[in-house]
């Protein structure tokens, strides 16, 4: 199995690896670069599914693209169009590769399900704190582990 997660890791050296354990939301395995949102994400009115970008003007990731990334975020906010908008990223080929959701809700759980990408939640450390944008991440949502390779 893996080593337990480190409680304080944001300043780990490049190449360091840490492993978190979490609850499976959507099973499967996804590997890729992390895009970490420091704040909740809106679906409807918050992303453009045609482009895979964040469009909320006041958002820290305004104009960033999540296509092909592992999207790490604290929670979903805003309209109930959330899942439908993320489903549309799948249908239009702009979806993220996987999701790591610090705190799940009906909205984001359904969103992960219909985006059909490996997703974990309820991790044993705050993923938005221990993962940084650009880190390399492996979601094993068959076993419930998340491996982070610091960039």
């Amino acid at each position, binding site marked *: 199995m893996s080593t337990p997660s480190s409680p304080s890791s944001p300043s780990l050296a490049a190449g360091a690896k840490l492993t978190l354990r979490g*609850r*499976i*939301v*959507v099973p499967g395995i996804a590997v890729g670069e992390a895009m970490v949102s420091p704040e*909740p994400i809106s679906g409807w*009115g*918050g992303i453009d599914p*045609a482009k895979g970008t964040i*469009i*909320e*003007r006041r958002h820290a990731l305004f104009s960033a693209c999540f296509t092909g990334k592992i999207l790490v975020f604290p*929670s*979903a*906010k*805003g*309209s*109930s*169009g*959330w*899942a*439908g908008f993320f*489903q*549309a990223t799948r*249908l*239009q080929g702009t979806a993220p590769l996987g999701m790591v959701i610090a*705190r*799940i*809700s*009906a*909205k984001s*759980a*359904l*969103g*992960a*399900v*219909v985006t*059909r990408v490996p*997703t974990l939640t309820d991790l044993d450390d705050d993923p938005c704190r221990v993962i940084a944008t650009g880190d390399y991440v492996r979601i094993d949502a068959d076993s419930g582990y998340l491996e982070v390779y610091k960039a």
Partner: protein
Amino acid sequence: MLLTDDEKRMRDGAEGPAVAAAMDLLLRYGRAVGAERLCEVRNVAGTMTQPSPVKAALVKEGGWDKAFAVINLDSDGDFAIPDMRVPTCQLQHGFGADALGIVPYPKQSIELQADAEAFYGRHGVNILATCTPYQVGNLPTFGEHCAWMESSAVIYANSVLGARTNCEGIASTGAASLTGKVPCAGNHRDENRHGTHLIEVDPRTGVDNFLDWGMLGYFAGGIAGEDHPVITGDFGRPDINDLKHFGAAAATSGGVELYHIPGITPEALTTEAAFGGAVPADGYGYGPAQRRHVYETLNEIGGSPDVDFVLLGCPHASVDQVRQAAAALEGRSLSAGTELWIMVPRALREIADRSGYTAVITRAGGRVLTDSCPAMSRTAPAGTRVFATDSAKQAHYLPAILGIEAWFGTTEECVDAAVTGRWRGELRP
């Protein structure tokens, strides 16, 4: 998950492939939310008819059956959709034929939607066409389990009516409409309905009108996120319009799906009841400084005082709000360069028409529009650069969606801006 015999039968195809696909989605979704079982619902509010490029392509490929399968059931199967198993309604969607030539909205979308309304009506979907189903007779009873989407409707149903729904999505409401089931998690369960954040309104704040209830909601959402704010302190009794605005704002700035106001919302006769026991020692104060901060946040994307467009009725206006707008417009005329839209459920426009309010608004140059809103339909009058609204939700979303500037203020300030073409709003103590 523990399934009843009935649910296993549906999963295994005894009721046909569409119902089996619906159960499959509910089981995937149930696992995702960590539900132990499903609960029965017989009140579903979702969206099937809203036009989109993805949907148009699916309809072209395989008709509405295909579109429902892909979008509303998240299924790759090919099958015909049966009649809705439980009462189901369509929420707000795109503009309809009554907006043709008035709103810059594609005729193909209007036609696609009309076709959808006919299809889904035949399958037993009540075409309410509003974000406020509770304003047109869809009233879940206290404690009733529902599957609703539309964040402003969900928070109203949970908090003001005491019904129980999560903030569902297009696929989960689609699956619920064909099965009468939804995962029994989150807001469906007693232990998840207590308050989490105490917000104390300072007596000097003056929360006693539509504007202020919206700002307080925006503040509460920022504090509580997806949790459950409890509002105490000193404020005037809110009416349905105030609570509609409060909830829509709290669901926008945060993801609030349930709040309590002791003595006013039915699950919290007292603050202790709202928290299910111990009241937090420290609350978040909402005083004049916090109020000003919210006001400035909602106005930070406004720069030019030249207003092209005024939007009222988000969430959809009540008859009484239309009456107030008509009273403010009586005998006046809009500025040549400014449009004013007030969004209402089409059913309630019928009442506004016969009460004479629509005529007053139309005489002044305004429009009473139905079914949709600029955010939902991603449209505003051609050339709009700056808009004004009395809705915190619309002020939040529209700049992102349409790339325009926003002013937020009172209904009367918005009407004045429509008449003068200039924004002169300010925060009064």
